[in-house]
């Protein structure tokens, strides 16, 4: 049985890939993922904003209050170097490449045009096999229009694609007015793959202290539905590889993702929650499921239930909504089920 798949031109032994998460923040963690059977690793994201922030914070605290008092003109020894900047990340990619046999996919979140391009190039130079652009952008400015935001995405992809030779995947937000069109335009800018979808960490409210607090909620399988639908819709319509990355927790989720059209399914929450051993268990489940149903290969099932292949296009469109509405009963107290 052939569990292998090809994603971003990389031949992977199976389609269960760890997505960007703290698990890849150390060489030890990366080794553990490989040992657990990961076919490739998407590194945790290099955030340009974080680099800028770290740099400014360091400068602030090394400068703050200094040269004010004759007995204490500075407060800290002048360290020879500070790992402010992408060096730590780039070194980790290099070390990961040297220490593992599997493809290493860098992940980048930039804020400036120069930053996207510069860091993309340096990630390539560090040895990454591919690059995932994690475009994490919350358009809070009421004067900023949708087309402007879309253009920003397209410009980033264009600029990065022009500056690197390794394959580039785009991790997308689900919040586009015309997701299919956006996917299409990204593909025309050269995107090699689309990763659906980015999860935005939503702040929570602390009612005791009346504060908004950053809050990390791990995903559940329920969240699979959104990317599942969109991969199923886009499969074959947009000529790129697809990866599903929200709500993948078990073998069934993987199977669904593949059948929707994803070349790979990516997971982080499940591994963070239950350990990297879940990769092996899920792959084993995949194998068993396929054996029981006499599938020969993963490739056989990729896109098998996509909109173009399912023969029920309405399921992914308005009919799906209508059907849901139809399932509502008054005794559920107004809660849609």
């Amino acid at each position, binding site marked *: 049985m052939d569990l292998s798949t090809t994603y971003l031109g990389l031949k992977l032994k199976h389609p269960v890939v760890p997505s960007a998460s703290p698990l890849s923040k150390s060489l030890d963690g990366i080794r553990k993922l490989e040992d657990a059977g990961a076919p490739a690793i998407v590194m945790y994201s290099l955030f340009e904003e974080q680099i800028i922030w770290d*740099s*400014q914070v360091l400068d602030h605290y090394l400068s703050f209050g200094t040269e004010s*008092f004759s007995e204490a003109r500075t407060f*800290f020894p002048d*360290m020879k170097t*500070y790992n402010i900047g992408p060096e730590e990340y780039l070194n980790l990619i290099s070390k990961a490449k040297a220490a593992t046999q599997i493809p290493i996919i860098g992940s980048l979140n930039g804020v400036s045009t120069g930053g996207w391009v510069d860091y993309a190039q340096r990630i390539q130079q560090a040895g990454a096999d591919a690059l995932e652009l994690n475009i994490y952008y919350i358009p809070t400015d009421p004067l900023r229009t949708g087309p402007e935001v879309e253009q920003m995405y397209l410009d980033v992809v264009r600029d990065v694609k022009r500056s690197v030779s390794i394959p580039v995947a785009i991790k997308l937000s689900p919040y586009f007015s015309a997701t299919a069109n956006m996917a299409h335009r990204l593909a025309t800018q050269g995107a090699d793959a689309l990763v659906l979808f980015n999860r935005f960490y939503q702040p929570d409210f602390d009612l005791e202290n009346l*504060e908004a607090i950053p809050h990390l909620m791990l995903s559940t399988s329920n969240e699979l539905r959104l990317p599942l639908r969109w991969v199923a819709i886009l499969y074959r319509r947009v000529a790129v590889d697809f990866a599903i990355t929200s709500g993948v927790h078990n073998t069934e989720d993987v199977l669904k993702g593949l059948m929707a059209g994803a070349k790979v399914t990516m997971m982080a929450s499940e591994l963070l929650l239950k350990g990297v051993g879940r990769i092996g268990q899920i792959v084993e489940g995949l194998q068993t499921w396929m054996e029981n149903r006499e599938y020969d290969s993963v490739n056989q099932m990729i896109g098998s239930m996509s909109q173009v292949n399912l023969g029920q296009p309405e399921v992914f469109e308005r009919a799906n909504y209508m059907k849901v509405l139809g399932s509502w009963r008054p005794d559920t107290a107004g809660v849609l089920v």
Partner: protein
Amino acid sequence: MNRPLETMEGNEATAYVAYRANEVIAIYPITPSSTMGEYADQWMAEGKKNIWGTVPVVKEMQSEGGAAGAIHGALQAGALATTFTASQGLLLMIPNMYKIAGELTSTVFHIAARALAAQALSIFGDHSDVMATRMTGWAILFSNSVQEALDTAMIATASTLEARVPFLHAFDGFRTSSEVNKIELLTNDDIHAMISDELVRAHRARALSPDHPFIRGSAQNPDVYFQGRESANPYYLATPEIVQKTMDQYAALVGRQYHLFDYAGAPDAERIIVMMGSGCETAEETVDYLTARGEKVGLLKVRLFRPFSVQHFVDALPKSVQHLAVLDRTKEPGSAGEPLYQDVVTALVESGVSGVRVFGGRYGLASKEFTPAMVKGIFDELSKAQPKNHFTIGINDDVTHTSLSYDPAFSTEADDVVRAVFYGLGADGTVGANKNSIKIIGEETSNYAQGYFVYDSRKSGSQTTSHLRFGPRPIKSTYLISSANFVAVHQFGFFERYNVLELAAPGATLLINSPFPAEATWDQLPNTVQQQIIDKKLKVYVIDGYQVAKDAGMGNRVNTVMQTCFFAISGVLPRDEAIAQIKKAIRKTYGKRGEAVVQRNYAAVDASLDNLHELHVPMQASSAIAMPPTVPPQAPDFVQQFTAPLIAGEGDRMPVSAMPVDGTYPSGTTRWEKRNIAQEVPVWDADICIQCGKCVLECPHAVIRSKVYDAAELVNAPATFKSADARFKELPGKKYTLQVSVEDCTGCTLCVEACPVKNKSQAGLKAINMAPQRPLRETESANWDFFLSLPEAPRYGELKFINVKNVAMLQPLFEFSGACAGCGETPYIKLVSQLFGDRALIANATGCSSIYGGNLPTTPWSLNKEGRGPAWSNSLFEDNAEFGLGMRLTVDRQTQYAHELVERMRDLIGTELAVQVLHADQSDEAGIAAQRQRVTELKMKLQAMGAGTASDSQVAWARDLASLADMLVKKSVWIMGGDGWAYDIGYGGLDHVLASGLNVNVLVLDTEVYSNTGGQASKSTPLGAVAKFAASGKPSGKKDLGGMAMSYGNVYVAEVAVGANDAHTVRTILEAEAYNGPSLIIAYSHCIQQGIDTAKGLTQQKLAVDSGYWPLYHYNPTLKAQGKNPFVLDSGAPKIALKDYAYNETRYRILSQSNPEVAERLITEAQKELTERWHKLEQMAKG
């Protein structure tokens, strides 16, 4: 050979040689020598090698005494060893210095010479410390400039190996130690060429070794000790020649020739000044100037002061000399003359030189300016028929009339030297930018450059003045600029507070950082400033530096903006080249902090020139703005006459007669100095405030206060005065006000952080919120004055002062200190002053708290309306516990004697009153108040007692008792200081005091570093934190001071963190004071030097407790007497990981950024230790 030319300060130049030519370096922080140790520690952390290719070991000790002991041991074991120190530190080394010299051991101690604490402490430069060691048997070699500091460090190090006499290499604190100047460095080959490996091996061969054992350090009897002391004479006799030979060798190597005594001036000089140290540079500049004009004057620089070579001295003097002025930068009260004067007189007498009249003089104590005008004044004095002897120069001694007069307008400054003065705030980065400018000009052009920086003594809102000179020749002017051709005022507010244009030369350029548009700036200047600009024909440029900096993302740091403007206007470099060099310097300085920081600075540079405008100066001054008086008219006479000129920066003009003779100053003077340093201040929302008092308790500067009062008091309240119905169940029907003194506020925002109330409609607002200060200044000042007129809370009655809400209403007797904005120490001090201030004696260890507590011009230690308040003093750094114990012994002894006198005079006083006085219950405020009343009655009776009603002895007793009667009221003795004192230098004494069982209260303000000297590690510094002297991360854990004190069993011990649990802090401080025995309170004090935003200090304290890093507990021996477990753990089990607390702080974070593997190992180890300690405390709490 091509040697590098670099700009650096004297300390770095000295450490440069010392580090490379030694194996063992013991260090301890003391201003102004600390940076020598810091450089050495940092170089060790970087793995920098000495000339033998190995990394020296640099070890911080617990005191300078410890450093000297460690060096003594290292030398005896055969190492090449050195240390750096100054002032009191050098005094602590004296015992070992005698030993090291007595054993003829080669070493050099490098001294940034500094004044000694006498009538007051001073951190500034003079030779008092060095002179105090002149009997130790050490050679003393002076250097006079930054270049000479490097050269002399080398010459001393080479000389001592051959001479076997140990050397002090001394240079002037601040003037040389901290002056930045362009110098030529030595290569490692140069240094090695000067050090004889053969002599190094001989040094080793003399060391103790079990492989060829002997003893050294014997005890000798009257039979041989004397002979032993004389046995080393040949070495001292040989030393001068050895030093001269080494100087000659050095000259052959690098081309700079020194002599034991260097003469400069006319070969036929008749009037000659003899002196040592940086003043020689100024004197030489003046001598050159005068001789060029035909005057027969000269200067003899003394380099080798000990051993004093009479022959070399006499040989160096021109035979034409008739009058000698011998200048000492020290004071030896009661002597026949200061040390150098006495040596010169002796030398002349011994060598039979006749016809020379010698006059001694003192100058430059504690960095007092020494200028060409003063040098000229001395020469002029020598021309008189009867010159004054034992004179002073630079001050106005109108008491014993020692001072010489001189013409301050006399100047020797050359026209081709650019002289620039910059006025800035510490916070705006002016000094850093100027240091960069010096490097640019010094290293990138053929110009020589000099920078010297003057700071005021406040830690918040401090003013800095930078004095920069650039010119085609090496700059010898070791004095402040008095006539500047460029003046930059980086803070517009200075125009209203200081005479900042005083130094501007006619036709000078003035650069103003103005918050107003260029065209509107003129009208915002005070009239007197406008007139100065017109009269001096100044060329004025204006930029809104704050706006440019803000737009570039630089916040308040206008450094880069103003630096760019300086280069653009001054023309020191072509503009484009200057911009390129500034950017190069920015990358060099900030590059390792990240590209974002570099780019932000670049943006500021690029935007600066577009926003720089030349101001058209009108013909007439038109402003209606006048400079306000320095202090208000209602300030007391002393403040008007003495304090105000000091605040205005005119202290140099104070005559001797104005000075208190014994270091005594009135309390409560900060209240007269309205500094207006906060841009934003807190504003009270009376509607939602719950009157909890937390903001009052946490305010580090005592600018937020609360009072409860009768509504009738509001009759004359200003219109904007706020009040609310009081929410105190003990005080129904009253009104409540929370008032802010906006002119004293530093804008730290800790009050906002402390406020627990959120606005129900706007959750971002609290019951106290920040708002711009300027629009509030006048109205809130009036409100503050009215608030002060409201009655203070009675200290006894309905309200019990046992909780935060009520304690907040007690009048603080520690107010408006110059501590850092958001200081973590001062809330504790203020609390103690509120609770016990009216009957407290306070011994304060040297450190931050002694500086913001007692540095002139003003003191925050205050007094109440009855005239009572804390009696405060600072002795030294190392002896504070003992100092406080002495106070306790006195209180106990005199109270006992007063009791005995009352007993003796029972009948005369009246039995009832006597019994009440003797057996008064003073356990609470009511009891203390009643006793005060009785003592007042007693004093009246005693006063009335006279001959006729009592016997002579009874009258004598009555007088005695009257002088001691106040001791009958309970006193509270407090011993305060930082962790450098309590954990390190003062620990031995503290331990002894705690063991004494006597009733003293020790408050340790634990910032976990030596905060006052710039953040060096103490034994309180936690494992894994970076500090100076622990540049690789502190490898050992924090000392458990509380645990050590608890082991005595009879010491009240508590660990508190007011930001984590204010009620616990109040409770334990009350308990500690009430305990009739020693108590120790270790108070978590967040500090800017931990690398935190002090505005978040309280949150950080809470995290420290939540992580278990700072467990709250108290150990109360009285519980033991009640059969209970004396140890109570007052905080819960750790809720968060240590990392979640620690990595909010730069001191931990920079290790993870610079050496992640080590950081991870240390933080893991620290977490393990924390967990183990927690378990231990849990077990203790279980009993």
